[in-house]
């Protein structure tokens, strides 16, 4: 992300527009890692922001800063926002974790909400979505539909959220197709269309006919479409413009209910530091329409799995599962606890390659 | 009487607030060497820029060879046979000699032919030059040859030379004069701009003297004394520099085996320099520009750090100390480049005074700046050195070169240094002010300071220095008493005519 540092610093210098003083209004700030038009992760957070505006009308004012690099720059952006009078600030990328904690300690009266992290404080809540539930469904479809038995996975950074997704997808693909192999490419970026396209092309050249992505742009979709005979899944957002092929389904983040509830809590004075981790059941993770390119029976199985996960009947990490090194992780029938999942730093048995540090 | 080549009638050019030229008229004959004499700011530069098409006159007319002449740009001027050798700013350091020459020509031939032409002309006029060398690596004298050859390749009818000898050794000056005489014999007129009176008396047949934008006199230099010329130029008589007879005291500055690499890409490294300066003594350092003067000053001021014992001040080794520590102890300096090195262009005179005088004048207490006191000091400098400026709050950039020079030198002199090193102290300063600056340096020495004056103006060095040495490619010549030194000896100390002996031996 360093390449964008200079640019974002310049953006900071221009300041945040509209920091007018309006004490009666609740001021809600958002820090975004990509542009709001990325069509993926940041796009959906911004949809949540717009939902907050629509829900509360004149009672709130929202401000946001997009394309903020993770690291020191984000600390500056948050500080500016807090100084600008924000009552609650949502910091929407894993890499903002330590900056959020640092800035929060300097502004005890401002509430912070950090997405996908695991560090909390009296005025810092964490929230995340159980994307791995959606990954399980993707894995199932991928395992059923691959002809080359090679599945490409464009990973962003080696953090627990991404590793969970890889593990979950792999377990469910393997379950329905024992010959399946995963190739993971670490792009080290959340958003760089050209690089994401290159990564997709590299995987396709290696014979992958399914591409899963944990990066935010639609570039891999375009690459798959150009290559033909490759299927993909929308990430964070529906990416429906690539349906029915190559995009056959998607994971959709829906942050709006959570954002509205938290802003309401600030207005009511009932806000407390919490750790929220919701999945398909409460609606924080949505499964985009499974297109007709997927055979009807596979579609039915996938939807059945979705319902089972939503009702709590099925947990995607249910034993027996071994770790990559062959040691036991979950015994028969045992399900993973949230603590282990939140800090997941290992591959499950069968995945090749090492997780970078 | 020669046939008239260039005839100028009533040229006037005004800039906001200044009239650079007012109703200037004179004429130059074919093959004539004509001097244009005047102080800095007298309007010489503007006048030649009008002839060369860089500046358009407000009114007045010019005739060249009997035809109306009003060049809209230098291309047109060159097309009409006018060429100019600039004092500064006309060479490109990263380009080769041939490329530089090509840039100054209207229709340059193919590179290979051009290289041959350069060789031919340089042989004809005794100006050796390799067309493929990069200009950045050339000496000042060689650079001037590039400019001259660039002009000669276009068979000019009028050659304008702006302060051509300021960068040359006496031997090189003699060679230049031979070239000019040869050109003159061939019918090329030369408009020769200078403030060096003896040179003008040597080479020029007639002179036009400008003062404040107007022609004040036209004369034949050979029949006029240098002093009379100077007084016409300045418009008043001024005091000649007074030298007190003196006795020298202890060694204040000692440099021993100083070697230092130049920090700049095209700089000159210093090689094994040793000398001493005693209290009350003025040491003059001559040499053609670019032979290590800047590095020499930097090594003594502390901008270039060396081994400790290479520079000693009052017996203590200071080679490893930075400029701030040396200033505090009383070793002061004033570099050549006024804007950007000696003074920060956009800061006021008060702030510039603060920058070098904070420690010695007590302008700073416990890290806090005493601005009223700094203003007082700046005003003292302005007063004592007759710096013409609206006040101490004026930005350094806004001062004319001469006035800023007076300020920069005055600022150091008034700090009562024990050792003062100055580079080109009177560069671009009018004759009266130059005399005042020289007097101040002599007075400082008389009060017991050791003074080192680096200059390219040999007359100046002969006037102020007790002993003389010259820098040549980073080495310092033997140091000799000024009394009894001849021009030829000085020239040899400066390295003679850089790589020109060969050419002359064969010519």
């Amino acid at each position, binding site marked *: 992300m360093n*390449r*964008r540092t*200079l*640019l974002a610093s*310049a*953006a900071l210098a221009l300041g945040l527009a509209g920091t007018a003083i309006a004490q009666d209004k609740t001021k809600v700030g958002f820090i975004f890692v*990509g*542009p709001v*038009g*990325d*069509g993926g992760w940041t796009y959906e957070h911004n949809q949540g922001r717009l939902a907050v505006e629509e829900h509360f009308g004149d009672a709130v004012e929202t401000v946001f800063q997009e*394309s903020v690099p993770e690291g020191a720059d984000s600390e500056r952006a948050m500080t500016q926002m807090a100084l600008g009078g924000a009552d609650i600030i949502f910091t929407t990328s894993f890499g903002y974790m330590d900056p959020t904690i640092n800035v929060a300690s300097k502004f005890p009266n401002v509430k912070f909400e950090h997405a996908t992290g695991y560090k909390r404080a009296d005025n810092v809540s964490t929230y995340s979505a159980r994307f791995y539930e959606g990954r399980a469904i993707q894995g199932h479809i991928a395992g059923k539909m691959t002809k080359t038995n090679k599945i*490409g996975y464009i990973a962003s950074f080696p953090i627990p959220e991404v590793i969970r997704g890889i593990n979950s997808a792999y377990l469910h693909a393997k379950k329905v197709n024992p010959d399946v192999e995963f*190739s993971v*490419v*670490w*792009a*080290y*970026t959340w*958003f*760089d*269309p*050209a*690089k994401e*396209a*290159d*990564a997709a*092309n*590299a995987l396709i*050249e290696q014979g*992958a006919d399914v591409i899963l992505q944990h990066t935010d742009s*639609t*570039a891999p*979709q*375009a*690459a798959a*479409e*150009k290559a033909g005979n490759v299927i993909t899944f929308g990430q964070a957002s529906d990416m429906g*413009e690539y349906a029915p092929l190559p995009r056959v389904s998607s994971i959709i983040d829906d942050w709006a209910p959570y954002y509205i509830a938290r802003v309401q809590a600030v207005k009511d004075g009932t806000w407390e530091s919490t750790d929220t981790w919701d999945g398909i059941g409460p609606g924080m993770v949505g499964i985009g329409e499974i297109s007709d390119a997927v055979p009807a029976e596979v579609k039915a199985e996938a939807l059945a799995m979705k319902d089972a996960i939503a009702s709590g009947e099925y947990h995607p990490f249910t034993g027996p599962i071994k770790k990559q090194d062959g040691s036991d992780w979950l015994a028969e029938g045992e399900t993973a606890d949230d603590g282990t999942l939140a800090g997941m730093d290992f591959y499950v048995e069968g995945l090749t*390659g*090492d997780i*970078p540090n | 009487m020669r046939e008239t080549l260039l005839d100028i009638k009533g040229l006037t050019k005004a800039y906001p607030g200044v009239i650079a030229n007012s109703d200037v008229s004179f004429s130059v004959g074919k093959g004539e060497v004509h001097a244009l004499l005047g102080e800095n700011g007298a309007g010489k530069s503007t006048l030649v820029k009008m002839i060369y098409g*860089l500046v358009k006159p407000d009114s007045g007319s010019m005739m060249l060879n009997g035809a109306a002449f009003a060049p809209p*740009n*230098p*291309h047109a001027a060159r097309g009409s046979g006018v060429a100019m050798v*600039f004092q*500064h*700013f*006309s*060479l*490109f*350091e*990263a*380009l080769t000699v041939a*490329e530089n020459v*090509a*840039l100054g020509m209207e229709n*340059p031939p193919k590179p290979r032919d051009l290289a041959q032409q350069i060789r031919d002309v340089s042989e004809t006029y005794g100006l050796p030059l390799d067309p493929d060398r990069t200009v*950045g690596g050339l000496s000042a004298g060689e650079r001037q040859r590039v400019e001259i050859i660039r002009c000669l390749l276009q068979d000019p009818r009028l050659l304008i030379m702006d302060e051509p000898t300021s960068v040359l050794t006496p031997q090189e000056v003699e060679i230049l004069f031979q070239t000019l005489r040869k050109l003159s014999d061939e019918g090329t007129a030369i408009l020769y701009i200078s403030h060096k009176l003896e040179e003008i008396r040597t080479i020029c047949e007639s002179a036009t003297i400008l003062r404040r934008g107007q022609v004040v006199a036209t004369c034949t230099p050979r029949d006029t004394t240098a002093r009379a010329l100077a007084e016409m130029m300045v418009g008043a008589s001024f005091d000649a520099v007074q030298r007190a007879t003196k006795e020298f005291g202890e060694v204040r500055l000692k440099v021993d085996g100083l070697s230092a690499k130049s920090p700049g890409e095209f700089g000159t490294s210093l090689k094994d320099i040793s000398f001493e300066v005693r209290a009350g003594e003025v040491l003059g350092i001559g040499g053609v520009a670019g032979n290590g003067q800047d590095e020499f000053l930097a090594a003594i001021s502390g901008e270039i750090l060396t081994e400790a014992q290479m520079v000693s001040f009052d017996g203590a080794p200071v080679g490893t100390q930075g400029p701030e520590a040396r200033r505090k102890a009383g070793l002061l300096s004033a570099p050549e480049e006024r804007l950007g090195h000696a003074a920060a262009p956009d800061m006021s005179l008060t702030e510039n005074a603060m920058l070098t005088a904070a420690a010695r004048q007590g302008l700073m207490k416990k890290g806090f700046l005493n601005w009223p006191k700094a203003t007082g000091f700046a005003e003292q400098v302005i007063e004592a050195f007759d710096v013409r400026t609206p006040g101490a709050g004026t930005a350094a950039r806004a001062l004319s070169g001469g006035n800023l020079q007076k300020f920069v030198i005055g600022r150091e002199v008034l700090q009562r240094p024990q050792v003062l090193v100055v580079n080109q102290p009177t560069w671009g300063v009018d004759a009266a002010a130059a005399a005042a600056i020289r007097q101040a340096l002599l007075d400082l020495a008389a009060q017991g300071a050791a003074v080192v004056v680096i200059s390219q103006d040999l007359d100046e060095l002969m006037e102020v220095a007790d002993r003389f040495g010259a820098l040549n490619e980073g080495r310092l010549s033997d140091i000799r008493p000024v009394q009894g030194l001849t021009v030829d000896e000085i020239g040899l100390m400066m390295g003679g005519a850089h790589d020109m002996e060969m050419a002359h031996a064969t010519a």
Partner: protein
Amino acid sequence: MDFGTINPILLVASLMVSATPILLAAIGELVTEKSGVLNLGVEGMMITGAVVGFAVAVNTGSPLLGFAAAALASALLSLSFGFLTQYLLSNQVATGLGLTLVGLGLSSLIGKPYEGMKAPSLADLHIPVLGDIPVIGPMLFQHDIMVYVSIAMIAAVWAVLKFTRAGLILRAVGESHDAAHALGYKVVHIRMMAIAFGGACSGLGGAYLSLVRVPQWTEGMTAGAGWIALAIVVFASWKPWRVLIGAYLFGGVTVLQLNLQAAGTSLPVEYLSMSPYLITILVLVVISARGYHGAPASLGRAFHASH
């Protein structure tokens, strides 16, 4: 190293595609900088080219018209930079950064309706004879026209700078604007032309991203490519062929490392991931280690004709 399953033909072919956007932007910036102007707005001009090229190609159905429009739009944008810095003498660094911000903002505005749309594709040429050579044919001679345009541009810039009077004057202006002015060259005019050329090339580079390499329009899609182009110009010591080497190395190593990852190499991903930056800088520094390789002496300095 395990190149086992990587197809070298596809690898070379995709590195050429991958390098082309940076190559185009860098050669334009090289010309701008050679004239003594530092335009840090490459990123902004690229993304403007990306969106305008995409929009025009979608609306006309002609990718080539898209490229032409991209070059024109970015050239116009760069001329606004030129006007501010050359006539109003604003600070080049600040203005360049501002240009980037303007470009990013403007492009997201123009691009809104085009998100998720598909652009007409630029056909690959099949160069007769050369394209039929086994291995080398598909590697080098079956690309789209812009790949060859970009290489031709390098050759042209090199030749113009080295052999023509126009190139000499351009370099002279970049070396010393005072000297060039004294000799009667129109410094500001020449610089405006160089700025416009740089803008046009950046626009082509951006359009190549949105029309060929990705190919789609996504907000912020240049994602730092402009900054890479700027860095390559510096590390290539302002020499056209070195810019080519730099851009191909960077593009090549990026593609190679992704391929190595996809092929399941045992090399640690951390090193692979930083390798494009490291190797490009290292190679360019090594080939530039000897000889004169300074920046144009007037680079970034404002020129004002004094009397």
